[in-house]
């Protein structure tokens, strides 16, 4: 991008529901419809083996996907160790490990723009 004037405009932080990038979300829901029933209780994150050691919040990552903000998915999803403890505590009975696997598949399938990987 040209930067003639020595400054730039920060991108808006607003989640624009009119430009909802739901390609990955739809793919996940098609194969694991229970994903939509999350009530953000945080049980998964509290028990998460990875999240207790590194900066990884599976609840926030999933919420980002449901809000059409999949930008950081690719970087985040690889932090999951697939241990499945989150499935044991989830009060909605969501197969979270399957959600993670579906996101991985969708990332390959749709190859969305990804800031981290492109930069």
């Amino acid at each position, binding site marked *: 991008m040209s930067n003639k004037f020595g400054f730039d405009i920060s991108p808006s932080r607003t989640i624009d529901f009119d430009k909802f990038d739901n390609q990955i979300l739809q793919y996940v829901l098609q194969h694991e419809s229970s994903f939509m029933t999350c*009530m*953000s*209780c*945080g*049980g*998964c*994150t*509290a*028990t*998460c083996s990875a*999240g*207790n050691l590194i900066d990884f*919040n599976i*609840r*926030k990552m999933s919420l980002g996907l449901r809000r059409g903000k999949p930008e950081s998915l690719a970087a985040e999803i690889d932090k999951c160790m697939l241990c499945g403890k989150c499935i*044991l*505590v*989830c*009060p*909605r*009975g969501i197969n979270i490990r399957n959600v993670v696997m579906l996101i991985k598949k969708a990332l390959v399938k749709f190859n969305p723009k990804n800031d981290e990987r492109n930069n």
Partner: protein
Amino acid sequence: MKHIVTIGGGIAGIEASDVLAEMGYKVTLVEKEKSLGGNVSKWSYLFPNMRPIGEIEDYMKSKYDSNRFTVIKNTEVNQIKRKKDKLEVSAGDELKLIADSVIVATGFEVFDAKRKEEYGYKIYDNVITSVDLENMLKNGKNITTPTGKIPKKIAFIHCVGSRDEKSGNHYCSKLCCVTSVKQAIEMNEILPDAEIYCLYIDLRMYGLEFEELYLKAQKQHNIQFIRGKLSEAAENMDKTILIKAEDTLSGYPIKMNVDLVVLLVGMESGKNTQQIGKCANLSFNSNRFLQPVDPHLARNNSSQAGIFLAGTCSSPMSVKETLDNARSAAVEVHKYLMNSDH
């Protein structure tokens, strides 16, 4: 004279029976336990105004001491059969009651917290339920943990067995949130130096004065509210309990060691409700409570003509709602008997 049999002698059964008796009907109340009162006798003080439960018990006692209706205790109903226009209620070994109408007021059972094994109830000494705490409060103001310590840090855990696929209960038991806030305030009054936390998923202060109680807990009682579901509890060497949750509002996993964990257990449809419902061929909803024929317009009508529902056999209810519901059941019975030819 028309005869009504009420099954269950908790506050719903007593109230409905008394209203019908005052209307001039002959009423027989059958209770399986040796005394009347049901679950209410387990509580200490009622939200939102901290009313001592003794006042409710005295009110109930004045009803059944009036002898306006007959009480049969220590007797379990085991069959309801339709005999032409009448209903035949079999109870105990050989009791048979012929009724024109039956009220099912079999109430609820408290969720068995042992089913949430990861929370450690009956495994770790210092994990108790909200019902255990009510019992402690009933027995005086000396609060110590089961291992004999004056608690300095207490955590209230919401939604234990409610809104939980793993417990088989999808519904919100709706009274636990306000009970937690009430008990947190009581703990602060007794132990002003203790740190008190409530871990919730959503705070459902549905009643008119419940939100004010929540505000009071924040303003005057220094109760701290954390939005996150408990994932697991573990016992330390010194018998304190390590709890883990996510503070979902800040997005960080949290852990804390507390002296006492209080599990807010919800209301479930009990064994008696199941048994009576099945033998009388009544409809159940997906949460195993008895299903009224219309959730708005006929909340007391069961799926069988002449059999009516009163109180918590059809859904979780507060004391106030239970009494309202029981009175409306009495009116529905009266309307049914007025309009029937038999």
